[in-house]
């Protein structure tokens, strides 16, 4: 085992941390926003919206993320219509393709988390809220939403960790984030174990940080 190499590659890989974090943060935030629309569609009485939301979640959760990344990066670029349109500004950059794929992926999983959070609230609470003269919107905002968020926090922290791990996949479409750099070092030095340890430490620290932060948040919002 070459400790010097671990040390060197650690700092080289650390240079990719910025890109990794950008991708993770952007897709988490955009994905959370998108997931709220998906949940609203799912809960709506409109058949078309409901079916759309259901099939979106079904397709995204049923296929590997790699297929989704390839589809956006290679599949969409095939059509001249796409290349000529305004979306090409986004789709020609591997970075934004990666962010888009991760956003869509996390939105599907997050929407299920939010939905089960909403479902866990007893219906009687909304009824009593209306009995106290709250409007539907007020009951949603003051009664339903805070409880749903509290219910969803543990599952969402899991989703964030999954996203941190998933962000490594964008290295396949030429983005030089942490795993991309790690791969480059491996093919240069043929020392997979050392590089794995160096990259693994960073990912584990990142995940540890998320777990600790969410433990604090959970404690803050728990009722017991």
């Amino acid at each position, binding site marked *: 085992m070459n400790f010097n190499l671990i040390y060197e590659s650690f700092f080289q890989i650390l240079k990719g941390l910025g890109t990794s974090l950008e991708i993770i943060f952007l897709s988490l935030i955009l994905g959370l926003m998108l997931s709220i629309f998906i949940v609203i569609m799912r809960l709506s009485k409109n058949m078309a919206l409901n079916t759309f939301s259901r099939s979106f979640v079904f397709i995204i959760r049923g296929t590997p993320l*790699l297929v989704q990344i390839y589809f956006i990066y290679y599949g969409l670029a095939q059509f001249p219509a796409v290349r000529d349109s305004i979306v090409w500004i986004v789709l020609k950059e591997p970075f934004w393709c990666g962010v888009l794929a991760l956003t869509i992926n996390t939105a599907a999983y997050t929407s299920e988390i939010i939905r089960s959070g909403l479902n866990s609230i007893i219906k009687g609470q909304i009824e009593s809220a209306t009995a106290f003269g709250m409007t539907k919107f007020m009951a949603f905002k003051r009664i339903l939403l805070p409880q749903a968020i509290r219910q969803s926090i543990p599952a969402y922290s899991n989703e964030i960790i999954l996203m941190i791990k998933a962000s490594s996949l964008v290295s396949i479409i030429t983005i030089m984030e942490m795993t991309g750099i790690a791969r480059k070092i491996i093919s240069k030095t043929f020392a997979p174990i050392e590089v794995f340890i160096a990259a693994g430490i960073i990912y584990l620290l990142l995940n540890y940080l998320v777990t600790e932060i969410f433990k604090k948040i959970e404690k803050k919002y728990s009722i017991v």
Partner: protein
Amino acid sequence: MELLSFGDTGWGDEMLRACFMTLAVSLCAMAFGLVLAIPFVLMKLSQSWILKTFANFFTTIVRGIPELLIIYLFFFGSSAAIMYVASIFGYDGYIEINAFLVGAFCVGIICAAYSTEVLRGAVKAIPKGQIEASHAFGIRGTRMLFGVMIPQTLRIALPGIGNIWQLVLKDTALISVTGLVEIMRQAHVASGSTRNPFLFLVTAAILYLILTTISNKFFQKAETKYSKGFV
């Protein structure tokens, strides 16, 4: 559509064969993972803190590090390790390890880490009174293990194992980076040579959806069957 026909001109038969390859790798990985999980579950449930720490170390690392990195480690690491051993015996050529074995091994390890948690939870969910009750009936040792503990553990763990199977199916897509011709790799090769990535990626997605949907149905059936008499 011609591109997806069976025979020499189309890629239909290749895609189908790749689909069976994905299934084969997933099954091997799942079987390996579940078997590997058993010693880790026992370690986690044991009284010894060394064993407990070791098992926790394993599950934390495998679940906290991207799957792709784990695959890179074993794909590049295993041939390096074997070449090192071969060089001791005087062979200096390049040795490449079978991509199927490495792939099934990597995904199996990932599966083992997740299964350990699921199985441990299931064992813990069995009420202690049952062990006492079986002791009272004179049922001990392996008879208690196979007659009381294991059947119940499996029933409780079934939904979790179903989730892990879905995870394994999707993780096998990552093995395509090692060159094993499963759905993802085949789709990539076909899109390269026909310049029609859209079609082949949609086909790949549909194949995965078929696999996940069928296995979902299967696990649902198994769950209803084995939860008869329980609420």
